[in-house]
């Protein structure tokens, strides 16, 4: 019985405390609603900065190119944007390697043709080492 009384008293005390606390909180809310317009404006400015930060964090980025055109990107796909910006470089390097490869093959092919012509000719290859024959080649054919 004593326990019941005690529990009842505790519950009543807690209820009274809660009522008082809520009344104080209501007064605090009333006071908070009466902030000066200047302060409200500064809070609004802070809120807008926070929203801007949220947009950045979510990945919506707005940039401006040199020509003044706006670029809107999406942060979660920024990885793809980076990849896309690297792709032209990769293509350029790949192209240069292919051109180098083609030139090397062309040179080998030309050299092979010369070798084939020299070796397939009736004239012995040692004849080209003969100074007299070289002089003969330089001399324009007589009429």
């Amino acid at each position, binding site marked *: 019985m004593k326990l019941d009384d005690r529990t009842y008293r505790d519950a009543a*005390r807690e209820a009274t405390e809660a009522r008082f606390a809520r009344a104080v*909180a*209501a007064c605090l*809310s009333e006071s908070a609603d009466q902030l000066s317009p200047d*302060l409200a404006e*500064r809070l609004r400015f802070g809120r807008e900065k*926070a929203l801007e930060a*949220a947009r950045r*964090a979510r990945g919506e980025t707005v940039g401006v190119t040199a020509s003044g055109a706006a670029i809107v990107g999406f942060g979660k796909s920024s990885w793809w944007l980076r990849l896309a910006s690297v792709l032209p470089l990769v293509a350029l390097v790949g192209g240069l390697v292919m051109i180098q490869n083609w030139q090397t093959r062309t040179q080998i092919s030309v050299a092979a043709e010369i070798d084939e012509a020299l070796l397939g000719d009736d004239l012995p290859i040692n004849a080209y080492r003969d100074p007299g024959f070289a002089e003969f080649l330089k001399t324009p054919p007589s009429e």
Partner: protein
Amino acid sequence: MATEKELSDFLKSVEKRAWKRAVYAVRDEDAALDIVQDTMIRLAEKYADRPVAELPLLFQRILSNATMDWFRRQKVKTQVVRNFSEYEGPGEDSEFDILETLEALGGPLQSESAAESVSRAQILQTIEAEVALLPARQREAFLLRYWEELDVAETAASMGCSEGSVKTHCSRAVHALAKALKAKGITS
């Protein structure tokens, strides 16, 4: 995930109370504004992708941390951490103080000494001053529990303490406020 409008509405709904709470803590309006702005930005940067229902608790926790950061920067942290044991629990007459003061807050406003001359604005100012004078942990528990309307478990989570501690802090805050307001003449 909270939409931009939901986030904006949420921030709008808490910014004034947050500023007041920061003012009670740091007693500097400009610093309080910086703390609230910092809190809003931290919430927006790190938790904008969270459901809107999670924002209140996150906001309160970030606000508490931002306030503590401010104190750390000011190197006056010791002013915040007080020896709570010096604040005694409710005495036998405390219940009576609460009931008397409760009437004044909810019903027609009266004052013991200056009677009808005390305006509502002055009473609100007195209440705010007394709230600001509460020990930091008591004030935080009281404001989170009754002003921000978090439940005991949420308040405990936000303050990083047990639910029992929250109840104790709240009870002591209520009795300290009732006593202080009665001493200032705000009674029925």
